């Protein structure tokens, strides 16, 4: 059964389109940063900030909030864009990304920007931190849910699997991980650099409940996250198949877009394309 109405889905799709535009604008203003990953995760971040998370943008340290841990800190433009649209800070501040004096560091810092749950960038350490949070919250009888967003590239890291083992052993049902399965990493395709498959079976072997969805199907993703909450014996990982650079044809699937920002003329073209896409979203729902 769907956990979300069609109207909600449409609202989230609109937000995702806003987030994508903001990402392109932020990256052009910054002149450096990652493009493909943030675009690919725009739908999922929109789903989190506008539907899934229990949070209060005006009170980012609210004790009852769910925790969203971003392990692969390099896609932080998507988090910043989502936070700005959700009301954590003004949209203009998003354009200070990577600039001197900005709270929006190139990789996110907990001490700089309220609402960033942990400092990240060096890959592989987010799952363990999320597991530690889930463990401590459960010790105190709290019901906040902990979400860990991971890249597929950082599945190469031993620390990821140490965290997976710990969460599996401790049956952390209040922990849901989401893997951005976009199949690219800096040096090329994940299966060429260091094969991850069979990824589902790996997590199952570590005592996790595993779901696989299309990461751009907002309804399916929200349903999966809802199902994860109903699993009481295990932590759940949602393997979200995404298209890197989603929304801009030139960027989609191209690993060369992993770590560079668009140039000004490219950005104009991309923004136009995104606005056309937004027209398509509307027409699909009309």
């Amino acid at each position: 059964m769907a956990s979300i109405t069609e109207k909600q889905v449409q609202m989230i799709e609109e937000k995702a389109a806003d987030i994508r535009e903001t990402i392109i604008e932020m990256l052009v203003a910054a002149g450096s940063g990652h493009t493909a990953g943030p675009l690919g995760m725009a739908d999922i971040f929109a789903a989190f900030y506008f539907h899934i998370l229990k949070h209060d943008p005006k009170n980012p340290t609210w004790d009852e909030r769910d925790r969203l841990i971003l392990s692969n800190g390099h896609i932080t433009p998507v988090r910043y864009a989502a936070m700005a649209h959700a009301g954590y800070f003004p949209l203009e501040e998003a354009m200070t990304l990577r600039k001197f004096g900005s709270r929006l560091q190139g990789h996110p810092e907990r001490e700089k920007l309220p609402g960033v749950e942990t400092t990240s960038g060096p890959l592989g350490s987010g799952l363990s931190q999320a597991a530690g949070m889930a463990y401590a919250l459960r010790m105190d009888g709290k019901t906040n849910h902990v979400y860990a967003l991971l890249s597929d590239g950082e599945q190469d890291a031993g620390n990821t699997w140490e965290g997976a083992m710990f969460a599996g052993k401790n049956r952390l049902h209040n922990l849901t991980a989401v893997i951005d399965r976009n199949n690219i990493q800096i040096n090329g395709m994940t299966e060429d650099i260091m094969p991850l498959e069979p990824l589902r079976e790996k997590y199952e072997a570590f005592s996790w409940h595993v779901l696989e969805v299309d990461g751009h199907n907002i309804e399916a993703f929200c349903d999966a996250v809802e199902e994860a909450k109903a699993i009481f014996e295990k932590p759940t990982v949602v393997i979200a198949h995404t298209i890197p650079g989603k929304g801009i044809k030139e960027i989609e699937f191209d690993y060369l877009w992993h770590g560079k920002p668009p140039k000004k003329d490219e950005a104009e073209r991309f923004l136009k394309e995104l606005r056309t896409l937004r027209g398509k979203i509307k027409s699909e729902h009309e």
Partner: protein
Amino acid sequence: MNTLATPHNLAPGVLEGKPELLPTRDGFGKGLVEAAEANKNIVALCADLAESTRIHWFKEKFPDRYVEIGVAEQNLATVAAGMAAAGKIPFIASYAAFSPGRNYEQIRTTIALNNHPVKIVGSHAGVSVGPDGATHQMLEDIALMRALPRMTVLSPCDSTEARKATLAAAAYRGPVYIRLAREKTAIVTATDAPFEIGKASLVLEARDPEIGIIATGPLLYQALRAAVERQDDVAISVLNLSTIKPLDDRAILDLASRVKGIVTVEEHQIAGGMGSAVAECLAAHHPLPIEFVGMHDRFGESGEPDELIARFKLDAKGIGEAIDRLLKRT
């Protein structure tokens, strides 16, 4: 008994060469249980070395607040960072060679940069680990930890001080590294000696000192032995530097202003260690000849602790030789 120098807050038998012996890790184990009795937010995590780090005393008393991590030091640091983010005060224990040896980046990013109150307890530091050999004799941990912004670095000289350092670390807001040793070593400080993070203590005060020895960790006892053995020909004051960071500049400069030269003593590489910290302070404020007793860019090896301390000239005799070198320079 030294008639020229005044001892401060020393335990019975120390200057006579008959101290009681206990490992610093015991003081930690005791202190942690005490701290945990007073504060229910304290939790303990261990990477499969509960008994040898003495964290098992906590485990026995507070099983619900004790977390097994297995042989996974990166996970040790990161799970602790997550627990701290959820309001806990985690103590993480392993051998110093593995934590902070193996998990330095996780400590840097998820503990120090996040500014979480995780207390990193590195046991089995120094060559006095003995028969286990170079792999387990951590000699670079002070350098790693003192270079990290926000990190406080404690290196207690004996079991008594280790207990107090643990209690102080538990009450301290930020991340702390506590360096411990495996072997039974002399109890140098009195039970009621004051301990405060960031404060060095003059444990032997010569009336008109020529030389100052600054020592950290259990080698403080060897420094005191050297001072006593040389008392008839050279007046020596001895400073116990149990907080390496933040450095007690005032105590170091106060000592430096009275002497012709300084000997630093530590069971650690010379590069980046306590002596380096002292040298940074003196070079900036009061340049003075320094002799560094420590490991000179080499690893340890298997052997009995006493043999190794002597082999690497970290004992009273080795310190005496450093005093002679210093006297020739001044």
